[in-house]
């Protein structure tokens, strides 16, 4: 696949945004004493990519930022967890974006992404630990994903609209 210079640049920028956001977020104290309950700021990069450049860009941004982020943090388990969560949530967001954009706006897409991200991470953790009682945390992780998903959604909408009016985001 031949990529235009502009596309490569935009992809690199979005991946960097995602990485920087996840580094910033890692300096925050944990929201709740629950593993997996985090703000998910890096998802802003994916949501922006989806709404400004389309599904394939969103997928590329997620895959790259999860891989690079995992290598930076140096934890294989962390890479596995963030990669699985990121990939599945991005696929779900793309599906909603493509099939249901009349019903759900960028906000709803972001919430759906947050919920599936947490659910997938839990499933991935289950694969590692093999303890079915882990799924007792699912409703807690799902309900936490609502405020964090809303926050990420509002941020993404703001950024996407600003970028659009600056007409920086040209495909």
């Amino acid at each position, binding site marked *: 696949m031949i990529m235009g210079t502009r596309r490569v640049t935009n992809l690199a920028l979005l991946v960097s945004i995602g990485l920087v956001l996840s580094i910033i977020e890692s300096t925050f104290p944990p929201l709740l004493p629950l593993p997996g309950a985090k703000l998910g700021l890096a998802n802003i990069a994916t949501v922006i990519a989806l709404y400004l450049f389309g599904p394939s860009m969103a997928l590329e941004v997620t895959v790259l930022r999860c891989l690079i982020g995992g290598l930076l943090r140096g934890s294989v388990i962390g890479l596995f967890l963030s990669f699985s969560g990121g990939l599945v949530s991005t696929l779900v967001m793309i599906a909603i974006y493509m099939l249901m954009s009349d019903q*759900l*706006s960028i*906000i709803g897409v972001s*919430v759906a992404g947050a919920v599936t991200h947490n659910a997938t991470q839990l499933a991935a953790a289950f694969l590692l630990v093999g303890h079915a*009682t882990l799924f007792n945390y699912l*409703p807690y992780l799902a309900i936490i994903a*609502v405020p964090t998903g809303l926050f990420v959604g509002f941020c993404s*909408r703001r950024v996407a609209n600003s970028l659009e009016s600056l007409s920086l985001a040209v495909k």
Partner: protein
Amino acid sequence: MKKYKSNKITAGDIVFTVLVVVASVASMVMIARATAGEKGSTAVVEVSAKKVLRIELSADQPGKTYTVRGMLGPSTIEVEKGRARMLASTCRDKICVGTGWVDAPGKEIVCLPNRVVIRITGERKPGRVDTVTE
């Protein structure tokens, strides 16, 4: 692709978000109900390494006592919701009685002279210590 500009919150957003919240709260309640019985778990009583009694500690039964026959004589076990203790025992040192209440899965009261062991079994609550050496 230019849909986001007029990306006002839709009714679908609200319905979906509320649905997630409702489903989560409902499952929390269901899980809390389902695991409520595990909390108190079970006390298993063994005499000479043979299981003689299995007491559910989930029911509210304050002050209920059970008596088993050990090597030397009767041992009396008192149970409450979620915990058990040796109330009286036919042994010299009464170490088992002195152990007091045990409530966490994996904890035991051992009376060597009378060959009686009370062991708490059940689901281990996450986030708690694995074992305590005393």
